[in-house]
C-alpha cells in the first residue's frame, strides 16, 4: 500500500515540468498539474497502478495537450502569439530571445492541431526522451506503431510550422 501524499511528493516536479514546458505559463501548468493528479486518483478506483511516474507523465502530457487544444479553440491558429501566451508567467521571462519564444509557441500551436495520439507520441519521444518501447507501453500500442505515429507527427508539424511561418512573413 502507498499513501497519496508520498505519490504527490515524489512526482510533482515531473508533472510540473511536463505541463509547464508544453503550456508555458504558471496558471495553465498549475491547472494541468491538478487535473493530472486527480485523473490518476480516479484511475486508482478502477485499476491498480504499477508505475506511478510513467502514468503521471503520460497523463500530464495528455492533459497539457488537451489544454493546448482548448486554447486553439479559444484563440484559433491564426491569432497572434501574444494572445496564445496571454496568461503569461509572472516570473522573469524564460525565453532568452523573442525568436526562440515565438518558435516555442508556434510548436505548441502546431501540437494542438495534431491528432491526439500523434501529439502524445511526439511529446513523449522528443520532449520526455522516452524510447519507442516505453512509448508503446505508455500508449498501449506496438513499437512499430510508435514509429508510424512519430513519422506522421513530424511531417505534419513540419508543414504546420512552415505554413505558419510563411503566413507571418506575408
Amino acid at each position, binding site marked *: *500500500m*502507498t*499513501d*497519496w*501524499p508520498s*505519490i*504527490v511528493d515524489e512526482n*510533482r*516536479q515531473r508533472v*510540473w*515540468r511536463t505541463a*509547464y*514546458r*508544453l503550456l*508555458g505559463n*504558471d496558471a495553465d501548468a*498549475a*491547472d494541468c*498539474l*491538478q487535473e493530472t*493528479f*486527480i485523473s490518476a*486518483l480516479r484511475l*486508482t478506483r478502477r*485499476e*491498480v*497502478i*504499477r508505475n506511478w511516474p510513467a502514468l503521471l507523465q503520460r497523463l500530464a502530457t495528455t492533459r497539457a495537450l488537451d489544454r493546448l487544444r482548448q486554447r486553439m479553440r479559444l484563440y484559433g491558429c491564426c491569432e497572434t502569439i501574444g494572445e496564445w501566451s496571454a496568461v503569461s*508567467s509572472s*516570473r522573469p521571462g*524564460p*525565453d532568452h530571445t523573442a525568436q*526562440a*519564444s515565438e*518558435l*516555442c509557441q*508556434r*510548436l*505548441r500551436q*502546431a501540437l494542438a492541431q495534431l491528432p491526439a495520439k500523434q501529439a502524445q507520441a511526439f511529446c513523449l519521444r*522528443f*520532449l520526455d*526522451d522516452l524510447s519507442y518501447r516505453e512509448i508503446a507501453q505508455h500508449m498501449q500500442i506496438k513499437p512499430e506503431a510508435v514509429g508510424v505515429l512519430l513519422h506522421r507527427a*513530424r511531417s505534419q*508539424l*513540419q508543414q504546420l*510550422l*512552415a505554413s505558419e*511561418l510563411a503566413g507571418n512573413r506575408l
Partner: protein
Amino acid sequence: MAPIEPFENDDLLEQATRDLRRTPIPEEIPADAIKAVLTAAPENFKIRSRSAFAERIKILKNLTKIAAALIIVTGTIGLFLLFYSHGPVRSPFTRIVEPLLAARTATFKVTFDIEGSPLQTHDVMFMDPALLRQTWTDFIQIMDFTQGETLTLTPEQRFAVLAKMENPPSNQFNFPKIKELLRQAQQNERAMVESLGQKQIAGQTAVGYRINHPPMEMTVWADADNQRPIRMESSIVTEGKKRSAAIHDFVFDIDLDKRLFSLKPPENYFVIHHPNPLSPPFWKELVDPFRGSLKAQRDVQQLPPVMALMMVRRIIIL
C-alpha cells in the same frame, strides 16, 4: 538534456523542439495547486497494490490469457483423468509389487535349493500383518513375527515346540521381511532395482526385476501381460554355500481362518517351551545329547532352522 535524434531536412522543427526542451521551468510549484491535489484524496486514503503475479496476468494480452487458461484447464483435466481414471503414474516395478504389499492374506509355495541338498517345497499361508503358517512334509510351523513367537507341530508324533524368536538369522526367508524389503525397493527404486528384461517361466512370458540388498539378492518376476507377480527368488551365500529360495504359485486375498495361525498348541500334544530354538543353547541342550547320532551334524547347523528342527525332531523321536 539528452540529445535528440536529428530531424531530416527539418531545421525549423528541430529548432522549435530544441527551444521547447530548453524552456526554463520554475522550480517552485504554486502552493495552492499542491494543496488542492493533496486534499483531493480522502483522509487515510490508501492506494491499492496488487501482487506482481496478479499484475503480470492483468497486463497479458487477451489472446495470451485465453491460451494460458486453456493450457491450465487442459492440464487440470488431464491430471484428474490420470489420477482418478487410471490411477497415478506408477512404474512397472511398483505395479508388480503392489499386490504383494497390499495383500491381507496370501498362499504360496516356497522351494528351497541348498547346495548339496535336494530341493524342498512347502506350502505357506500368510496373514497380515506378520503371521505365517508353513506346512512341511512332516511338520507345521506357525510364526508370529509381531509377538516374536513360533510354534512347531509334528502332527504324526503330537510333538510341539513353543519358542521365542529372538534375533532371527538374517538369511531367514520370511514373507513379512520380504514385504519390508519390497517396500524399501519401491521407495528407492532408482538405487535398488534393476530391470532384468523378459524370460519364459512355465510357458508364461515374465518380466523381471532384481532388488539389490546385500548380502541378499532378490528377483521378482511378473506376468508380462497383467503385471501380477508369479515368482520371487532369493539367494544368499553363507559359509561358502549358496542357499536359494523361490516363492511361487501366489494366491492373494483369500479367506483364511485366523485359528490356523494360533500359537496355542493343540491338546494332547507334548509341548516343549524353549526361549529360542535358533540360539546356541537350543543346540547345546537338544542336539548335543544326540551328537553321536548325527553323522552330518555340521550340515544340520547349516540348514535353514526349520529343516534343522525337522532333523532334530527325527533324532528325538528316534
